[in-house]
């Protein structure tokens, strides 16, 4: 093979942040892909079946050894492996394969391949993406049996004896848990995304992972030197010396910064010229408050309240909600908790309400629309929030506001709730701050009218970007277009922030955009007063803010609004803040 002339850059999805440099170790599955078909004579059917049974048994034994040898911290993920254990003997796979050997008189490999593709076909028509993706489990189990049938020398990840970067088409949970993790510097896979098993494991171990690279296993060869940049979702193959040198420094810097950031995370985030920003945590359950505190959060910028409404046939009652909200507010007081009212959407249906099928759930009956359609349910939540507000600092955040009427109506309900509580002699606090979540372009465009009605805006960037750019970000085919630095998004943000400042309304952000350091100069320049994010991101973001000059960022933003594309915008940020970014990233 001829050596490559220059480095190759592959772009994927960041599965876990961090940077590592090392040798590639390919998890090779060639040999399993090519399945021969041949017919067997009547008298060989029995022995063919027992050959199949043996292979299945061996595969199952291997798996049970994997489960036994699992370290404690991974045991919680092992139910997937237990499921695989049962799949080995599943009628639709195991039984079907034996049936095919008998009826079609074919070799065991072919029968297994047939049974597998039939089983997979059963999944193809399922509309729920989560259930549909379970066909991968069938595939993995089938692969294990096939390896034993064909007798391919199975690579054994647990035998890797040097520190390498694992490159694979896709890693099954069984494979991921076989790995002696202290030997792995990073993960690279063709498939997978932010929510995949590999990504979760990598983040738990705090090693970098770049996933969804499509063709990494074709481009990368064993022992290639590669750089995994989990911060940018990028892989560099055969880096030239200059790149290598730069990344070696980056990697050292990243580790040092991470340690440093954690040490100083409880200090306030103050820009180099003394502008103070609140860095808050997003949570879903009261238990997560501890994580927010440990990572130095200045409060809760987004408390998602859906959890108590899911997994159950009835709606929670006021007492239950009140107890939970009170617990949260008491744990974090005197810092604020921003409670977002019920935001149910297409993928979080409540069993108590059989939702009619909507062709476009993202544009359908969800969040505030749903709540106003069910005022009783909404009022129960509002009453619980008003009562909890008597115990600490609570802000009320209304999701998916698209017009003033929704706020008018909510205020009416709040007043009614307060009157009732007054009559019933409950302690409550009606003087809570009310905020509109800005995540629909229409609300950004009428921010001045909304500002008359609320105390603060909180921008939910995930949906705002999705609705502004008309991109379903979980759709793999268009996900590449999803970019919060698109000039259209920045102009909308500027419009909301400027209006907020003019109207004396506070402006916060609680979407993923707030947790990416590359966006920080823009957000600081726009004058956001608070950013809320996953607790783990808080230390790094605080650290970055301390290095930026807020006045300079404001001048910078004036220029950035003239950029014509997301790429130009990113380039402009790199040109202006590149040094700071590479230092921190």
């Amino acid at each position, binding site marked *: 093979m001829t050596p490559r002339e220059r480095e190759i850059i592959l772009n994927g999805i960041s599965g876990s942040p961090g940077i590592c440099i090392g040798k590639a170790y390919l998890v090779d599955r060639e040999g399993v892909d090519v399945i021969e078909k041949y017919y067997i004579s009547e008298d060989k059917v029995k022995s063919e079946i027992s050959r199949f049974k043996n292979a299945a048994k061996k595969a199952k034994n291997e798996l049970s050894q994997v489960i036994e040898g699992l370290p404690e911290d991974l045991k919680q993920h092992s*139910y*997937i492996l*237990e*499921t695989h254990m*049962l*799949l080995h003997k*599943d*009628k*639709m*796979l195991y039984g079907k394969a034996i049936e095919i050997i008998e009826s079609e008189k074919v070799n065991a490999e072919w029968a297994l391949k047939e049974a597998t593709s039939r*089983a997979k076909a*059963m*999944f193809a028509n*399922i*509309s*729920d993406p*989560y*259930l549909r993706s*379970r066909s991968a*489990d*069938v595939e993995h189990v089938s692969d294990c049996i096939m390896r034993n049938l064909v007798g391919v020398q199975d690579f054994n990840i647990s035998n890797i004896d040097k520190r390498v970067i694992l490159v694979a088409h896709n890693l099954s949970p069984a494979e991921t848990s076989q790995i002696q993790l202290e030997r792995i510097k990073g993960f690279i896979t063709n498939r997978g995304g932010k929510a995949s098993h590999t990504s979760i494991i990598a983040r738990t171990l705090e090693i970098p992972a770049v996933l969804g690279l499509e063709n990494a296993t074709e481009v990368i060869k064993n022992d290639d030197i590669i750089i995994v940049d989990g911060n940018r979702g990028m892989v560099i193959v055969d880096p030239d010396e200059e790149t290598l040198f730069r990344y070696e420094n980056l990697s050292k810097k990243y580790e040092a910064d991470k340690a440093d950031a954690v040490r100083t995370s409880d200090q306030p985030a103050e820009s180099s010229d003394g502008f103070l920003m609140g860095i808050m945590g997003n949570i879903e359950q009261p238990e997560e408050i501890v994580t927010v505190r440990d990572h130095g959060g200045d409060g809760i910028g987004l408390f998602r309240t859906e959890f108590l409404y*899911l*997994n*159950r*046939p009835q709606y929670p009652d006021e007492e239950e909600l009140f107890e939970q909200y009170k617990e949260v507010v008491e744990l974090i007081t005197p810092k604020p908790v921003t409670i977002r009212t019920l935001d149910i959407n297409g993928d*979080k*249906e*409540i*069993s108590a309400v*059989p939702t009619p099928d909507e062709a476009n759930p993202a544009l359908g009956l969800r969040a505030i629309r749903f709540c106003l359609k069910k005022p009783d349910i909404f009022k129960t939540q509002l009453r619980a929030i008003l009562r909890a507000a008597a115990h600490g600092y609570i802000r009320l955040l209304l999701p998916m506001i698209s017009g003033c009427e929704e706020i008018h109506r909510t205020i009416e309900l709040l007043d009614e709730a307060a009157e009732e509580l007054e009559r019933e002699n409950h302690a409550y606090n009606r003087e809570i701050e009310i905020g509109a979540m800005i995540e629909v372009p229409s609300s950004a465009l009428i921010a001045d009218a909304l500002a008359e009605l609320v105390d603060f805006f909180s921008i939910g960037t995930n949906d705002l970007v999705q609705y502004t750019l008309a991109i379903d970000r979980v759709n793999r085919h268009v996900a590449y277009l999803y970019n919060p630095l698109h000039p259209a998004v920045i102009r909308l943000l500027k419009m909301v922030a400027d209006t907020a400042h003019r109207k004396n309304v506070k402006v916060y952000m609680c979407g993923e955009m707030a947790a990416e350091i590359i966006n920080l100069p823009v957000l600081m320049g726009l004058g956001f007063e608070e950013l809320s994010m996953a607790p783990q991101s808080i230390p790094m973001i605080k650290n970055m803010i301390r290095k930026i000059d807020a006045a300079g960022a404001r001048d910078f933003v004036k220029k950035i609004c003239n950029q014509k594309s997301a790429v130009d915008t990113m380039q402009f940020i790199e040109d202006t803040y590149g040094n700071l970014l590479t230092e921190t990233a």
Partner: protein
Amino acid sequence: MNDLKKQFAKETTITNELGLHARPAAMIAEIANRATSNVWLIKNDQCVDASSIIDILSLACLQGSNITLQIEDPADAEILNQLHELFESGFGE
């Protein structure tokens, strides 16, 4: 459904958020595999074998789906009860 069959059937609803995903399916199959005869899960007009994870998953039961559990042999009444309890508990999720 005739009267005889009705005796051996129970109605239930999927309450857990993710519906009948891999883990609940495995729990169901494990119990159904101990039955003397066939155990069926029925949703609308679709009927699948409760002892096969793959078959259960292919039924695509989301939260809120109504399911009928059915056995063929009275000897499996205890299996039916266990399965019903498992469904009602939301698979402990």
